[in-house]
């Protein structure tokens, strides 16, 4: 009798290496965090749910959990509607100026959320243009429009997040097998009905996957909530976490973060449940490339609406940033006298600190985004192409960093890596590791959905043709999801470029990053104009990065 043989040493090795990286960057800090939240400190071992008790018995926490779900849910739904709708229009209709629209959306994506919030306040705030106009022209009561509420957070976060959805769904829709949509048309469904019943449901894994990411990211993101929710006491769970952090109440902060994580875990379960039985195959042997519907007489009105929306969401904030970065003072009238290069000079003046920070961030960004993309693909592969037990749990675990505030992630990293023999704290490595952790959710989420849409028989036929599982994946599925990997990479890169809490808590001398620079400029009351200048630099770097990555993607396809 023949003994069962083990095949694929190399594949196993790669998978093991990925799992090892995952263990180090993701799972170990999470375990530390959980233990810590349970009261297990390094000094003594005692398990208690005290922190949880404190967290959950606080009425403020409960209401903030409600707010969190409201905001994150609202943002996810709206971002999916907005991003999905726009993606559909760009891939399925003969809308003019698609290139321009795509660029505008991409730009909206790289505008830092903090700046985005500030420019929306400038528009809709108490002293905002709209309110002033309404008051001056129509003599409406003072400040008829109020942005400082949960809906305001939803508005700004939606505008900040929908490009993410858009980018992912664009590539997913482009993968869709056209003949399935044609079959719907023939069955009597019009273009819109077809979109709603076939095109979008077919890419449900991608929608839900990226929706989940948006949900978690919104939950954990504090920047916008701090600017728009906090002013009027609209607390979300993250507000409470930061409050606890600020109070140096780490147990409660970590326990609240775990609660936050569990909240998104519920959403993850719902995600898996909704995909449990059906198959959403949109790439198969018979796949036909997308074709566009004619919008007919709607073509011009629609493009005007789209461009108008995008100018509000992108052009205005972007213009504000770029112009402000050359202004002597935020909000000044624009004329030759008010222009200056001082803001940029200030960034580069600090003993070369500015340049160093930019260089470091680019290097860290490239490294972290690349490692995360690779690991992300492997994680998605394990979760969707193998039958390993607990693979779904692993997928979720790999995305936990996005579900907690950056500061908590940094705290977890400190706790995890400060004591010998695992002492990386104080070296740049901890920064890299934590960046990788922060990027992984983006990398995983952007490929995990699309991967589920590829007909397995395509890989099967490659296996028959003599390819190992890894090779089959590499040759067959990977090229299909390359655009998604690219999206994930850019998201990750961008994340590192403007990430603040991790940078500020974990950096060491000589390894300053743009985040450090940004934070110091801000707390230094350098004014929003300096912040804008940094944002412009980030935007320019990202655009260059995107161009490069597109080139790389193209040459890989060749």
């Amino acid at each position, binding site marked *: 009798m023949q003994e069962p043989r083990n095949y694929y040493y190399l594949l196993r090795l790669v998978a093991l290496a990925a799992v090892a990286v995952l263990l180090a960057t993701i799972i170990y800090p999470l375990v530390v965090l959980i233990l810590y939240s349970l009261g297990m400190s390094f000094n003594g071992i005692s398990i208690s749910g005290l922190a949880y008790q404190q967290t959950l018995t606080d009425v403020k926490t409960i209401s903030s959990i409600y707010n969190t779900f409201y905001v994150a849910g609202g943002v996810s739904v709206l971002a999916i509607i907005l991003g999905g709708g726009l993606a559909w229009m760009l891939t399925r209709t003969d809308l003019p100026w698609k290139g321009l629209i795509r660029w505008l959306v991409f730009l909206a994506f790289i505008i830092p959320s903090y700046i985005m919030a500030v420019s929306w306040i400038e528009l809709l705030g108490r002293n905002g243009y709209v309110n002033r106009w309404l008051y001056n022209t129509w003599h409406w009561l003072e400040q008829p429009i109020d942005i400082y509420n949960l809906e305001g957070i939803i508005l700004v976060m939606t505008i900040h997040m929908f490009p993410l959805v858009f980018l992912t769904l664009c590539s997913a829709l482009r993968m869709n097998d056209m003949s399935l949509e044609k079959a719907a048309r023939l*069955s009597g469904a019009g273009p819109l009905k077809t979109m709603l019943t076939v095109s979008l449901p077919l890419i449900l894994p991608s929608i839900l996957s990226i929706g989940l990411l948006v949900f978690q990211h919104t939950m954990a993101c504090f920047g916008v909530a701090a600017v728009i929710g906090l002013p009027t006491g609209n607390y979300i769970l993250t507000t409470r976490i930061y409050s606890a952090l600020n109070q140096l109440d780490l147990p409660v902060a970590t326990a609240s973060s775990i609660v936050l994580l569990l909240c998104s875990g519920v959403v993850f379960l719902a995600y898996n449940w909704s995909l449990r039985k059906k198959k959403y195959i949109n790439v198969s042997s018979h796949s036909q490339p997308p074709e566009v519907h004619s919008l007919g007489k709607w073509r011009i009105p629609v493009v005007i609406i789209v461009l108008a929306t995008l100018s509000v969401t992108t052009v205005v904030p972007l213009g504000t940033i770029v112009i402000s970065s050359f202004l002597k003072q935020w909000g000044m009238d624009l004329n030759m006298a008010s222009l200056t290069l001082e803001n940029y000079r200030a960034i580069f003046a600090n003993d070369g600190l500015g340049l160093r920070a930019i260089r470091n961030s680019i290097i860290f960004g490239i490294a972290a985004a690349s490692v995360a993309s690779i690991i992300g693909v492997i994680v998605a592969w394990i979760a969707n192409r193998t039958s390993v037990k607990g693979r779904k749990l692993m997928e979720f675990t790999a995305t936990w960093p996005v579900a907690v505030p950056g500061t908590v992630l940094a705290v977890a990293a400190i706790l995890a890596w400060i004591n010998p023999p695992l002492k990386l704290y104080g070296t740049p490595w901890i920064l890299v590791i934590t960046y990788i952790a922060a990027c992984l959710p983006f990398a995983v989420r952007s490929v995990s959905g699309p991967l589920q849409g590829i007909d397995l028989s395509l890989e099967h036929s490659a296996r028959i043709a003599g390819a190992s599982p890894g090779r089959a994946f590499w040759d067959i599925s990977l090229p299909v999801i390359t655009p998604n990997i690219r999206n994930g990479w850019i998201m990750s890169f961008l994340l590192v470029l403007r990430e603040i809490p991790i940078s500020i808590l974990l950096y060491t001398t000589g390894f300053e990053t743009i985040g450090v620079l940004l934070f110091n400029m801000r707390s230094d009351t350098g004014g929003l104009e300096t912040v804008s200048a940094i944002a412009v630099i980030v935007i320019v770097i990202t655009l260059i990065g995107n161009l490069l990555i597109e080139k790389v993607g193209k040459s890989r396809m060749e």
Partner: protein
Amino acid sequence: MLQAQLCNISKRFGTVEAVRNVSIDIFPGEILAIVGPSGCGKTTLLQIMAGLEKLDTGSFSVAGRLLSVAETGVFVPPEKRGIAMVFQNYALWPHYDVFGNIAYPLRMKRYSRKEQKKVVGGLLEVVRLQGLESRYPHELSGGEQQRVALARALALNPPLLLLDESLSNLDANLRKEMQEEIKRIQRELDLTIIHVTHDQQEAMCISDRIAIMNQGRLVQVGAAEEVYRFPRTEFAASFIGSSNLIRQPKDNPAEMNLWEMASQRMVAGGPEGAKILAVRSEDIKLNGGTGPVTGQIVGRSYHGSVIDYQLRFKDRVLKVQTTADKRYDPGQEVGFTIERVTSVCAD
């Protein structure tokens, strides 16, 4: 009144001329079979009719209503045409179960849930898939998928139904049953059906007329018997059935003899002065070793009810089909006669 009219339709993909100048009139309530070699443009033609491809030239109308006109740009979108189609690759929606797939067209027409259940139940019976309502396409065999696709197309009782090799993955018995069901439904509801198939038996037995295409062109349209008995071109003769083509001989002795034998058996109605004669393989009779003309058996293949022989006569190999009870062995010399010349090619 004409049910459907294809008028000078052409379509190219880049440099490939998939359909060239095809015109057919389709009568109401008829089943028209389209046959032709792989890649000759059958699917493209159906897609043009369904409104899934725009045409380059010509026009397509149903019941007098222009649906696609190349010149004026008239184009009625697929969902407004009232045409159903079974795709060659089925195009089942992976995210709907069998019920969902079949009920989809009904949902689009706002049938109530109860009505949907009833109609789908009936269709499942027609395609013999009772009990599989809640399976998803990936949980079905190829033939089952194909039948779901068929049921989906039948759901709306479309006045015009396009079938693209829709029975190709079914076994002979089931195929026959499906043919009968399609024919029954067609008769009951007076549907018009255009049926692309590679199965000539199928084409001949369920269709009222057969259209033969080649390289994007329409070669011949006519009733089954007409097409079989009087192919109008060499291509039609060789494509339908199994034929021995005999060319007007120049100096080839085999051709010369055959031509002579065949000409005596010309059916009336064939044009005179033809240069090529077609002799169906079943129209050559073998008579065990004797006879004025003999050939040598060089090949044999068993087909159940019939046997195909390859018979060498001088330097030609003829295809001969006999009933299964006549058995000759390879190498054997047998006499043969030409019983009938199917037709004379106009070419």
